Every structure is written in structure tokens, then in C-alpha cells.
């Protein structure tokens, strides 16, 4: 969607809603603020639900009412009690989500600056109302036209195509170098697969604050239950070990590979190679593995960096444990001197789907 159309939408929004603050709301500034939301929410053409519901036409929407999104009980209850999104209610929600709707599952700390709230509201309004709907149609059509021929390439076999001569069944066709390059992005500890590029800790810090901190916390400490990325050194033999890149991961290549293929969550493969180098450098910095903000990680020095826990991984030797010793005949009668006594009851008695959500951690499952 073009900038002028967005502005038009915003103006239309301003006209509809009464009680708008007197100072100007800035759609472009709002678009920047929305980066904080974008990892969880989509707007615009073909916006889909991600971690959060898509936010097209959110103004006028009853809270928690979008079909196909699994809201928290409290958000649905708020909607049932008549909460409708408008300037005031969205504003209050964005200031302190958990205070405004107790039990909301939006794991977002809130926007501290009033100005940010107003601007992001202006930006969201450019995706609400009829003006935008009409404006988006041509875009949509164009996108579809572009997409169609792409999906047809090589899908339909040509009847009189020459028979391939590879393998046993001569099925499939040779993969083209461009195709392999597009999909083969994996990295190995020995550096195989690393693309050319570089990035500094300082640049990584900017990117991290913009695109990662909403979930992983400004210092990689993890907001709510989102994964912790830093700290935990020296805790691996504790009752509750904290396993992070610094305390646990054996190889730096894994960080590069994973961030490039899967992060930010909900917008995978959107980072440039330089961005991934910078973010990887910053994750080293958050874990005190490098201490210099000017440190630059690149394809040249990458394999020189070693993670502290590398030596502590061993191969599977479960079969050497005493309980699997060969020839053990299990006892069948009088196996214990005393009758059984209960030493522990289930901690979580009622694990119903609607059970209390903040029951407290039984520990990670993945």
C-alpha cells in the first residue's frame, strides 16, 4: 500500500472518531512503533494471525472476537462484557496490557510514551475502515498475478520431455544452482555454509532492541515465558539449570543458523546476512563472551570464536547404565521388604484445558 493511501486512511479515521487528542498523530512514526508489534501482529494485505491476531479493521472490533484466533479467556470475557476497540481502549491496553486486561496473553510490557501510543493508533487506523479495503484490492490482484506463473513452473510435467537418465527410476529433475542456493542456508560448526558478511556488537544491539527484545528481553533474560538467551553460566549442575547460548550451547554456528532460519518468530528469514552476523555478535556480548562493543563478527573470524561449554557434550551411552545391563531378570515376587508408601502426590491435580494458566512452572517440555 502506498504512503499516500495510508495517510488518507488515517485522515478518514480521525474524522470518524470523536475525542481525538488535539495534536497530530503521525502514521509514519506509528509505522516505526509498530515494529515492536510486528513480530506478533500482521496488518495489510493477506495479514494472517500470528502470535497475536491480525489487526486489520481492529477499530470497532469487539475485543477477542476474531474467528480462528485462540484468545485468552480474559480477552474473550472482556469482549463479552462489551469491550470494543477504539482510541481510548486500545490506548489503555497498549499502555499496560496486563493491568488493563488481567490475564491477557499478550506478552508485551506496554508502550511507555503516550506519543508512541497515539502514533501506533494512527498507523493501525490506516488499516481500518472502507477506504483501505478498496485501496488494497488492486495491490491484491497484482500480487496474485505475480504469484500464479511462479507456482506453475515445473509443476506440470511436459508430456514429451526427454527422459532423465539419473538413478533407477529416472524420476525428479536436476536441481538448479539458484534453487540450491535459495534453500541451502544451513551452517556447520566448521564454518561450512557461512555466507560472506559481517556485523558489529553495536549494530546487533540496535537490531535486537527493535526486533528481538519484546520477547527475549533487553538483556536476553526472556520476557514472561519466552526463551532466555543469555546468562546461566555455572548453573548446569544446579537444581534449576539455566541453559543459554553462553552457558550451554556448544557451537556458535548454531546461533547463526537458527536466527537466520527461524527468527524473529513470526517473520522468519527476513534478516540479511549482515544483520545475522551483527545479532550473533550481540548475543556473544550479552553472554560476556565478547566484551568490546566494537567487536565485529564476520565470515573471516567466525570459526575462531568458541563457546565455553563445547567440551561438555558426550555421545549417547544410555545402554551402559546399570539398569540396562545384559541378562537382568526382573524380580516377580516379594521384591520390596515393606508395603509401598506414597512419597509424593501429583503437583497439579486438575490439568483441565481451562485450568489455571499461571500455575507455575513444572519445567520446560521441549
Amino acid at each position, binding site marked *: 500500500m502506498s504512503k499516500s493511501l495510508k495517510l488518507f486512511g488515517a485522515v478518514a479515521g480521525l474524522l470518524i472518531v470523536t475525542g481525538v487528542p488535539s495534536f497530530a498523530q503521525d502514521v509514519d512514526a506509528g509505522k516505526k512503533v509498530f515494529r515492536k508489534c510486528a513480530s506478533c501482529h500482521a496488518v495489510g494485505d493477506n495479514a494472517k494471525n500470528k502470535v497475536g491476531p491480525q489487526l486489520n479493521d481492529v477499530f470497532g472490533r469487539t475485543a477477542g472476537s476474531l474467528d480462528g484466533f485462540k484468545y485468552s479467556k480474559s480477552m474473550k470475557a472482556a469482549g463479552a462484557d462489551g469491550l470494543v476497540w477504539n482510541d481510548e481502549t486500545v490506548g489503555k491496553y497498549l499502555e499496560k496490557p496486563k493491568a488493563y486486561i488481567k490475564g491477557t*496473553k499478550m*506478552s508485551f510490557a506496554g508502550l511507555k510514551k503516550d506519543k508512541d501510543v497515539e502514533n501506533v493508533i494512527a498507523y493501525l487506523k490506516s488499516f481500518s475502515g472502507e477506504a483501505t479495503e478498496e485501496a488494497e484490492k488492486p495491490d491484491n490482484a497484482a500480487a496474485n498475478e505475480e504469484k500464479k506463473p511462479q*507456482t506453475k513452473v*515445473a*509443476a506440470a510435467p511436459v508430456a514429451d520431455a526427454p527422459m532423465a537418465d539419473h*538413478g*533407477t527410476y529416472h*524420476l*525428479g*529433475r*536436476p*536441481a538448479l544452482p539458484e534453487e*540450491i542456493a535459495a*534453500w*541451502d542456508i*544451513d*551452517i556447520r560448526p566448521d564454518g561450512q555454509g557461512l555466507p560472506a558478511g559481517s556485523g558489529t556488537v553495536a549494530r546487533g544491539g540496535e537490531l535486537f532492541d527493535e526486533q528481538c527484545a519484546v520477547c527475549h528481553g533487553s538483556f536476553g533474560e526472556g520476557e514472561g*515465558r519466552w526463551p532466555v538467551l543469555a546468562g546461566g553460566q555455572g548453573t548446569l*549442575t544446579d537444581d534449576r*539449570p539455566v*541453559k543459554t*547460548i553462553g552457558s550451554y550451547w556448544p*557451537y556458535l*554456528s*548454531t546461533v547463526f*543458523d*537458527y536466527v537466520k*532460519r*527461524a527468527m524473529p*518468530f513470526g517473520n522468519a528469514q527476513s534478516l540479511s546476512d549482515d544483520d545475522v552476523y551483527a545479532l550473533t555478535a550481540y548475543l556473544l556480548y550479552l553472554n560476556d563472551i565478547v566484551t568490546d562493543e566494537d567487536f565485529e563478527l564476520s565470515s573471516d573470524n567466525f570459526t575462531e570464536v568458541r563457546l565455553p561449554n563445547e567440551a561438555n*557434550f*558426550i555421545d*549417547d551411552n*544410555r545402554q551402559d*547404565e546399570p*539398569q*540396562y545391563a545384559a*541378562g*537382568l531378570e*526382573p*524380580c516377580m*515376587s516379594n521384591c520390596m521388604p515393606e*508395603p*509401598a508408601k*506414597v*512419597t*509424593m*502426590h*501429583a*503437583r*497439579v491435580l*486438575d*490439568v483441565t484445558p481451562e*485450568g489455571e*494458566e499461571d500455575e507455575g*512452572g*513444572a*519445567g*520446560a517440555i*521441549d
Partner: protein
Amino acid sequence: MSDQSQDKTHPNKSRRSFLSGGVAVAGGVAASALGARAAVAATPDPLITEIQEWNQVLGDGVDAAPYGVPSEFEADVVRRDVPWLTADPISSINFTPIHQLDGIITPNGLCFERHHGGVAQIDPADHRLMINGLVDNPLVFTMQDLMRFPRENHVYFLECAANSGMEWRGSQLNGCQFTHGMVHNVMYTGIPLKLLLQEAGLKPNAAWLLPEGADASGMTRSVPLDKALDDCLVAFKMNGEALRPEQGYPIRLVVPGWEGNMWIKWLRRIEVGDQPWHHREETSKYTDLLANGKARRFTWAMDVKSVITSPSPQMPITHGRGHTVLTGLAWSGHGRIKRVDVSLDGGRNWQTARLDGPSLSKSLHRFYHEFNWDGSEMYLQSRAIDELGNVQPTKNELRAARGENSIYHNNGIQTWQVRTDGETENVEIS
């Protein structure tokens, strides 16, 4: 003890009479006798003496449901999740209702789900499978190409390595759906992976594979070539119909007996290499931290395991004293199950249970133990032994060998306490 009549063979019936208002008056008498032993009917059962609606009025014709669904009385047989286990439902998990199932096959819609980037929805016409790396001919296959390879059918269990992972530090979740429900067992139709690799031609130094998913998590795992050439499949059907989207439609990797995370869903690429990749799911995750701070990696096989699915916390005994059926599941990633023993007294004395149904390698096995319950408290346990002679260990043996921080590969013996009223709870005993 009342002598009120009750239908023990059709648990649904008592629930039905409980649900359907008018009849429930008479049914209510029976319901109040829960836990009682029944022998003689005091009053005639109106479900028999009165004509019921379904005896008289015509039901739906064919095609009322072009894709059939379970009876409305089975509405509680569903996958369930535990929301607080993960940060959000997209990278999360739910559990197979194994306590409500029987036999060895899991219905497709009840197979537990674990995704790392949500369920990818892929039109098979848009799906490609690439094989690249240390091969003579890097290839791209369409679904149509894949359908022209020879196929095989096999029943295999898939268990998440984190199944029972919450129970390392002691009993946590009250239901075998939650303690043991990250497992399912279906018949796959697929292409032996060996054939696809041979089609591309393996280079002499090929030793490892990196299968990769097409979803938003781009899931990858390193798989040793020997396993791929042995029994891995690229599957496109489960229980005869197309894979469900949440199970990787249109194709997934099948890695029999090995941890579920390796069974890459929405499989789009297989790279051949000479070393493992050490990706996130085999370093940060799916490595087993031991008490001494060392961590095991590449712990692929799922060890011998069993659980009693009924009675269990979600399946208490509601019929009172008398003849009862104890049943459960046993499986091993090393092969077939040779024997299952059950104990009613917390492991002091054991009896060998009856295995029933097909006994297939790396598949769930069903066991039964029928007995007369005298109404006293019980501590139920089951212990499986596989064809290699591996005996399912106790939880304390595992803790002694590994500590409590492993998360994965908890195959310890489960204890259910059945109280005199039939209520059943997840406990640990000594």
C-alpha cells in the same frame, strides 16, 4: 453396598442416562450407587421398558457427514494442552487422549501435535522435495514424481523425547494423557528414503543427512546415513488417508523408533553431508543434561516404556468392587515388546499381563490384565521388556543414573494410586 443394577459393559449408557433429563431420575438411582457392586434390578429399566426416541424416529441418511465424525457422546475424547507449559500456542504441544483409546492404532485427529512455528498449510501442487549435498545428481521432486516410487506400509509409534519430561522431579500432572500422551501410533504409507537417495546417487563420503521442514521454523535435524538406509520413510499417508496438516502434509520423514523431533514435517529438503550439523534442536534442545553437568547428545532411540492407561487419573474405577479390566500400552524403539508385567501393590509382586493385537517392531503394543478388585487401595505399575531384553527401569534408577535435569527420555515406571472409592492419582512411592 447397594444392590442397585448398573450396566458395566457399556459405560456410555450410564453417561447417556445421566445426560438425558427425564430418564435420569431412574438413572440417578444407579448413579448414586457409583462404587457399589450391582447384581439385582429393583425396578425395571425404562431404557428397556419404554420406547426410546432412536427406536422410533428415523436418523440421518447417508452423506449427512461426507467426512464422518465421532459420535456426539464422544465429544470429550480430544487432544488437550497445558497452556502454561509454553509461552504461546504456536510453538507448543498438546497430548493424545491415550486413556480413552484402545487397540494399538491412534486415530489421525487425535495424534498429539508439537509445532515450532505453527501448522504450515501447503498445497501439494506447490510442494517440492530437494535432495542436495554429497550426491551425484542434486534433484527436485514434485509430489507427482514421488507418487511414482515404490511404496511400503508400516505401523510405527512416534514419541516425543520430552514425553513424561515434566515428571523427572516427581509426580506433576494428574492424567496419563499429560504424563504419557506425547505418543501416537499409525500406519504410514511412504517411500523408503533409501530409494530417493539412490535416485540422486550418494557420494562415497556421504555419512549424514540434514532433513529440513518447509514451515516457519525451518526445522532441521542431523540423521546418520545408516539409519536412513535402514528403515526411514518419506510418508504421505497415515492410516490410509493423507497426512493431517499438523502431521506434516503433504510429506513427513518417518524415523522408526527414534525421537519424534527427528520426524521432520512438511519435508522439503534433504542435504547429504559428511558430518553432523549440530543445529538448535540437537544442541540447545534434545540433549540430556546429566547431574555432573555433562550433556548427552544424539540420544535418538526411544527406550522401552509402558503405561497403564486405565485405570488412571482420568479413568477412575466407577463400578465398585468386582471384575475389572486393566489396560495399557507398551513400546520400544529397539524392536518388539516381549513381555509386560503389572503390579497392583507398587512393585512388590508382579504378574505377566496379556499382550493382545498385532506385535510389530517399533509399534505400540496393547496389554490387558483382568482381575477381581476387592475394593482395597492399589498402587498400579507396569513394566515392559523388549525383544533385546531391555527392562523398563524405575524412575529412581533413572534418577540415580542421570540426575533430574535431563528433561528428555524419561521411560521410568509410572505409579497410579487407586483409592478405595476408585479415584486414581499420579503418585510416587517408596
